[in-house]
């Protein structure tokens, strides 16, 4: 091989390697979502609303309206319905009568409905003064967001509800307004799981089958 060809080959191999490497890198970065041609991109990314749901209830501590801190562990051993809401969210407010009823039913003596208001404390206190809420409410701003995120919400939206069984396992999560039939079906399944009558994964499949037809799709 003449020296000219040798140098040419070396050059081409280097260039080819660099180009191939760059393409592999771009492909890995862009196969999920090809980047749009934008001039300024300051927006948060737009993935699906829910990430993976954790197996166990995350730990968080937030203040009640009077300013006293409460750890979620206080309700360990009870069936827990954690409802993330905000005063400015109309569907969240629509759920409150249902949650009041559930919390007040004698049949659900070991059920705790826990409201987590992701909002300004003053706004929440003003709201609670006007609207009766018959279950414990904790208030968080960034820490409230963090708690919701720990339950698997990625694209924050409200209302968001998590069901935690009596062993501290997250049974299911629900994004959007709750419907009474779905909630009652979920609570009944958790009762059967906690009583040892049903495997938790089988119960989840049953829930998915029971609620699939009732959910709106767009």
């Amino acid at each position, binding site marked *: 091989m003449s020296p000219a060809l040798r140098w040419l080959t070396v050059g081409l191999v280097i260039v080819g390697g660099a180009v191939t490497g760059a393409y592999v890198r771009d492909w890995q970065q862009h196969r999920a979502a090809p980047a*749009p041609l934008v001039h300024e991109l*300051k927006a948060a990314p737009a*993935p699906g609303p829910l990430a993976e749901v954790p197996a166990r209830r995350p730990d968080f501590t937030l203040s009640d309206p009077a300013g006293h801190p409460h750890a979620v562990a206080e309700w360990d051993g009870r069936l827990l319905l954690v409802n993330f809401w905000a005063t400015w969210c109309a*569907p969240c407010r629509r759920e409150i009568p249902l949650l009041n009823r559930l919390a007040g039913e004698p049949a659900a003596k070991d059920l705790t409905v826990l409201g987590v208001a992701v909002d300004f404390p003053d706004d929440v206190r003003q709201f609670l003064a006007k609207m009766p809420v018959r279950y414990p409410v904790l208030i968080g701003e960034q820490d409230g967001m963090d708690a919701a995120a720990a339950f698997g919400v990625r694209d924050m939206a409200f209302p968001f509800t998590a069901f935690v069984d009596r062993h501290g396992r997250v049974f299911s999560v629900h994004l959007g307004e709750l419907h009474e039939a779905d909630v009652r079906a979920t609570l009944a399944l958790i009762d059967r799981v906690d009583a040892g009558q049903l495997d938790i994964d089988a119960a989840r499949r049953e829930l998915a089958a029971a609620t699939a037809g009732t959910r709106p799709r767009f």
Partner: protein
Amino acid sequence: MSTVRGPAGTTPAGRISAVAGALLLAAGLCSVPVARAQPAASSAAATAAEPEARRSPLEGLIKHRASDEDERFLPVDEAFRVEAALGPTGRAELHFQVAKGYYLYRDRLRIVPADANTVLGTPDMPAGVTHEDSYFGPQQIYPEAFVVSVPVTRGSPPTIKLTYQGCAEAGLCYPPQTRVLTVGRGLSGNTGAAGPAGGDGGGHSEQDKLASLLAHGRLWSVLGVFFGAGLLLAFTPCVLPMIPILSGIIAGDGPATTPLRSFLLSVSYVLGMAVTYTAAGAASALLGAQVQAVFQQTWIVVLFAGLFVALAFSMFGFYELQMPASLQTRFASASGRIRGGKFLSTALIGALSSLVVTACVAPPLVAALSVIAETGQVARGASALFALALGMGAPLLLVGASGGRLLPKAGPWMVTVKCLFGVAFLGVAAWMLERLLPPWAAFLLYALVAACLVYVLLRVGLRGVSASGWRKVCAGIAAAYAGALVVGAASGASDPLHPLARTAAFGSTATAATLEFHRIKSLADLDRELATAERQGQRVMLDFYADWCASCKEMDRATFSDPAVGSALRDYRVLQADVTANDAADQALLRRFGIIGPPTTAFFSTDGLERRDYRLVGFKDAVAFRAHLQSFEAAR
């Protein structure tokens, strides 16, 4: 404006958006875009397969997937889309799209300037549909697409920060969303992959069209277009000096030259040039640095000019230009023969040429750099740059392929030809130094080069025979030119191609309508000039210029001095920013407009707004320039 019964007498929206800022920050920090699950039918497969690909086995044991919740509600940026466009007479239009079953609250819409240079009037929001809210009372909502028009008092380009909040009728509310939009490109923060990029308003200018093609087009057509663009650039003053450089290298290669060898030399040169051009371009786009200006520092230009003087002297036969002996032996042991080093040094000269000689901005370069910087498509952008550089180098390959055939092998002719290329090297060196010198000194340098040419033509390679007729004619022309240059230097002329322009002007009273540039240096100068123009109802042209930019000089020479261009620009306020120094003020000006470098010309309509889609990049001759002015004036 309808009232919102805020609990503490405040409007809730303002307070909400403060929380939202924190929320968005959290979302922005922790999440990465991932592929969305396919709707309905394939959901089971997507649910099963997709997470496995990204999850570690351990995670698979401890987590379960949220059932089909992902598909019930749209991500917020699909529920609500917004694009900004420049409306008529200095207004920005924000086009909102609202998915069916979703709505936005009118009172929670906030539109404010996003930077200190933008000044907005009161937004004109259309009436919405009244919606009864159990807590806040009647609310105006937008369940369908709507347009908000905002007067833009100032901004170049105006940037708008908007906050909006909405819900799904099926029972979900999104926290307030904040977006920053730039008006004038027709591209917004969340058009997504499905949006028609470069659609309305975005694709007028050549660089924007190329950028859109590069970002979205098929790879082979992208490479073809950029190669073609490179071919066109090859004959501009930015690339042309490479032809004498490469020809000289081939001519100086010595008696062993074969057509194949000279072709391979030109391949080395072009590859060195193209690889460097690509790497420097990609690096500057990623780092946001001004590589182009960095290589125009005095010492680099002087060093490079010195290299060409040394090459010229070697062509004259004063000495053999060789690599140091230690390097030679290394190459010798590496390649078995000493001559491989010639290709490497040729490639190095190609690399240096691309950095120092081709210091001009052209539309395809701007397109490639902006795509790299804004979308992170490095490989695509770099491939386009490489295709562009190969296009610029293609004529050089022709030079290489023919050079070996046309050049004489040996003899007195060969000596003359080598000396002529030596003179060409001296010309390149003078051309490099011209950007550093006052005109009179550059004129004298050119005169010196012309004198060398006269000497070569009349004295070299003749072996006692007197010079032939054509040699005498050429020498006469060169001598006349040298004389004219000396006169030009004395009379204060500025264009080496027309050294007697000033002298001739003494005779005629009707001088051409020369364009009167208002020089600006800082952002404050610019704002003052724009304000003056706005008061006087003038359009504004702002030209970015640098001494080292060959195309800029060509623009001055061929376009801005054209009387027809001068009269077409009569009613404009014509500004020029000289960014030769590349100091902090220059960089601030370039950054304000997101300009990569000169030559770039920006146009402002009478309301003081830059029409970014009419920005000119690279050389334009007088005819094309006037056509551009006409289309700019005909635009809204």
